[in-house]
C-alpha cells in the first residue's frame, strides 16, 4: 500500500509521516522537500524514515532531508537524535562510509588563468590522487602508525608536513574526533585502510575544479566573508570518506550487534540494517570509539588529498601554494554520530545526533565554528552531479528544528544499473567537454552511472533547504574539470 497517501503536508516544504502510521513508531517522521521532490521520492525512503522513528530513545522526530533516497536501514538523508542514556547507536544511521564528507578549497586564481592549463591540471590530479578500484595511496606507513593516524585524524598529517594549522582550524572538530580508540578496531579494518590514505575511491566520489561566476553568487556578503572576492574565482571541491576502513568497521559492528541485540539487550528492529546497541552499553561504546577512528581516518584522507592538490597546482603554475592563495574553506562530514547540545522541549540537552547523508549546519554564533566564520554560520558544502554544479551554503538560526542539519548532495533518482544501460561513459565525457567540463575517469562504466540525469535537480534540493530555513545558499560552483573514481 502506498505510504504517500498517509503523509501529511505541514507546509510547502515539510511533510509528516504520523506517529501512528506503523506499529512501534515512538515519534513522527518529518521530510523536508518541495512538492516536486516529494513526488519523485521513492516510497522506500518514507518507509525507512518511519522505521527510524521506532528506534529506542529517539527524540522529537526522525528527519529526512530533501535529497533523501533509500539507503541501508536509514535512508540517505536521514537524521535521528537520541537520548544518550536511554537510546541506541546504529551503524546504519551513520552509513558504512563513515565520515564521508566534502572539502572545499579556494584559490586566488581566476578561470582565465586556469583554462589554458585545465588539461594539465586534470591529468596531473588524476595521476597524483589515486581513484577507482585497487589504487593505493602514496602514504606508506606501518599498521601501528596507521592506528596512531586513526586516533589523531588530520592533525597526524599536519605533524608530518602534509598541511597547516589553518587547515585544521577550518575542519569540523579541527579534523579529529576525540576519544577515538583503535583498540576497538579489528585487524581486518586496519589492513584494509592502511594503504588507502590519500585515495579518492570510487562510486559517487570525485574531485572537481570549479568556477564561481558572478551571476552564481547568491549572497554577496557571505560569499566575500568566505573568501570569494574575485570574479570567476577558481575552487577545488572533493568528496570522499574513510574508504574500506570505515566500511570494515561498519560491517564488523553490524555483525556483532546482530548477535547481541536481542538476547543481550532485548532490542527488536524492523530491518537488520538498523542493528543497534544501547549507546551507553559496552557494545555501543566500542562501536562509538571505533567509528570515531574511521571519522579521523577520513579527515586524514582528505587532508592528504589537499596536500596533493597543493603540489599539483604549484607544479602547474610554478608558484608556491601560498602565492596561489590555495587555502581550505571548510571540511564537513555528512556521515557521523556525535554528542551535541540541542534544545529539546525548551531545555538544552546533550543528545546523540546520527546524520547519514546529512550535513551539520551550525548557525551564526556557534562556538564550535572557527572565529573567522562565527558571524556567518557554518559553511555547508553540497555536492551536485558532475553536470550540474554544486553549492556553498551557510548554517542558519532557523535550522534548530532540524537539529542544525541540512542536505548533503543531489540524491539519486536512477539506479546505477539503469544509468549504465541508458548512458555510455565515453559519450558523457564528450558531451561534458562540449559544455566546458573536462572529465578524467578511472572507469567508463562507473562514469555512466554518475550521469547528471541519474540525480535529482540540485537547484530544487537547495531551494527546499532555503524554504525550510535549514541553510542559506551562498553561491553555486560550476565544474570545469572533474576526476572520477
Amino acid at each position, binding site marked *: 500500500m502506498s505510504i504517500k497517501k498517509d503523509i501529511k503536508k505541514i507546509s510547502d516544504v515539510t511533510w509528516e509521516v504520523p506517529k501512528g502510521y506503523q506499529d512501534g513508531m515512538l515519534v513522527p517522521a518529518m521530510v523536508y522537500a518541495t512538492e516536486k521532490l516529494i513526488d519523485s521520492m521513492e516510497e522506500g525512503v518514507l518507509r525507512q524514515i518511519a522505521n527510524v522513528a521506532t528506534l529506542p530513545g529517539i527524540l522529537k522526530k526522525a528527519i529526512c532531508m530533501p535529497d533523501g533516497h533509500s*539507503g541501508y536501514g536509514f535512508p540517505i538523508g536521514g537524521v535521528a537524535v537520541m537520548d544518550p542514556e536511554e537510546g541506541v547507536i546504529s551503524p546504519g544511521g551513520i552509513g*558504512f562510509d563513515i565520515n564521508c564528507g566534502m572539502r572545499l578549497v579556494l584559490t586566488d586564481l581566476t578561470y582565465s588563468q586556469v583554462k589554458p592549463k585545465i588539461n594539465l591540471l586534470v591529468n596531473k590530479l588524476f595521476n597524483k590522487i589515486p581513484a577507482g*578500484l585497487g589504487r593505493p595511496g602514496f602514504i606508506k606507513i606501518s599498521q601501528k602508525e596507521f592506528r596512531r593516524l586513526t586516533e589523531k585524524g588530520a592533525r597526524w598529517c599536519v605533524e608530518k608536513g602534509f598541511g597547516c594549522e589553518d587547515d585544521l582550524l577550518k575542519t569540523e572538530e579541527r579534523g579529529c574526533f576525540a576519544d577515538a580508540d583503535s583498540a576497538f578496531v579489528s585487524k581486518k579494518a586496519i*589492513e*584494509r585502510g592502511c594503504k588507502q590514505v590519500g585515495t579518492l575511491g570510487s562510486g559517487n566520489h570525485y574531485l572537481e575544479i570549479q568556477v564561481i561566476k558572478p551571476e552564481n553568487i547568491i549572497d554577496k556578503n557571505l560569499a566575500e566573508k568566505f573568501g570569494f572576492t574575485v570574479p570567476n574565482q577558481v575552487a577545488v571541491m572533493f568528496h570522499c570518506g574513510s574508504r*574500506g576502513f570505515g566500511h570494515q568497521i561498519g*560491517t564488523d559492528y553490524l555483525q556483532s550487534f546482530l548477535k547481541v541485540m536481542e538476547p543481550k539487550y532485548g532490542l527488536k528492529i524492523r530491518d537488520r540494517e538498523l542493528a543497534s546497541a544501547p549507546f551507553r552499553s559496552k557494545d555501543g561504546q566500542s562501536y562509538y570509539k571505533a567509528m570515531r577512528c574511521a571519522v579521523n581516518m577520513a579527515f586524514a584522507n582528505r587532508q592528504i588529498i589537499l596536500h596533493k592538490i597543493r603540489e599539483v597546482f604549484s607544479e602547474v603554475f610554478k608558484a608556491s601554494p601560498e602565492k596561489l592563495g590555495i587555502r581550505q574553506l571548510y571540511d564537513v562530514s555528512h556521515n557521523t554520530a556525535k554528542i551535541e547540545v540541542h534544545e529539546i522541549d525548551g531545555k538544552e540537552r546533550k543528545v546523540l545526533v546520527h546524520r547519514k547523508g546529512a550535513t551539520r549546519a551550525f548557525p551564526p554564533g556557534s562556538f564550535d565554528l572557527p572565529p573567522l566564520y562565527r558571524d556567518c554560520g557554518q559553511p555547508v558544502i553540497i555536492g551536485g552531479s558532475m553536470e550540474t554544479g554544486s553549492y556553498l551554503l551557510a548554517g542558519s538560526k532557523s535550522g534548530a528544528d532540524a537539529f542544525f542539519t541540512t542536505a548533503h548532495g543531489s540524491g*539519486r533518482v*536512477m539506479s546505477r544499473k*539503469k544509468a549504465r544501460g541508458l548512458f555510455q561513459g565515453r559519450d558523457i565525457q564528450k558531451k561534458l567537454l562540449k559544455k566546458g567540463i573536462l572529465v578524467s575517469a578511472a572507469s567508463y562504466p562507473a562514469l555512466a552511472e554518475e550521469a547528471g540525469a541519474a540525480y535529482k535537480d540540485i537547484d530544487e534540493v537547495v531551494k527546499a533547504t532555503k524554504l525550510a530555513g535549514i541553510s542559506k545558499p551562498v553561491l553555486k560552483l560550476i565544474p570545469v574539470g572533474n576526476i572520477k573514481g
Partner: protein
Amino acid sequence: MPYRHLTDLSISDVAFFAWAKTIEELFVDSAEAMLSYGLGNLDSLRKKKIISVKLTEKTIEMLLFAYLQEIVFYKDAKQLLLKARKPVISKKGDFFYLDGKLKGEKIDFKRHSLELDIKAVTLQNFKVEKKENWQARVVLDV
C-alpha cells in the same frame, strides 16, 4: 552464467540474483556475480594465488554474507581479485561451517578491465533460500 545483475533493487548501489542446484554452487556463483561488477573481463583473471577461508556462522544467510565480505576484504587489504572454488559447507549443532579456497591474483591495471569498487556486502533485501534451486539476492555497496 547462473546469476543476473538486478536493475532496480537498489538506487544507490548494485545488486545480483544468483541460483544453483546446491548451496556450495550458490556460494561460487554469488562470488562470481560480485566479481563481475568489479572486473569487466572475468576471463582475464589468472589463478596465481590461493587463499584459504574458514568461517562459522549461525545461519546460512550470514555464512554467505561473511564469505562475500571476505572476498571484499582481500581486494582492499591485499589488492587481490578472487574467484571461488567450490567450498565444503556443513552444519554441526547450531552452526554452519565453511571450508574453502579462493583463487586469483593481484590487480593488474594493464590486463584487468576494472569497473566498480565493491566496498561492502549489505543486508538490505539480502536473502538466501531454497526453493526448487538454492537462490540468493544480494545488494552490494559501491
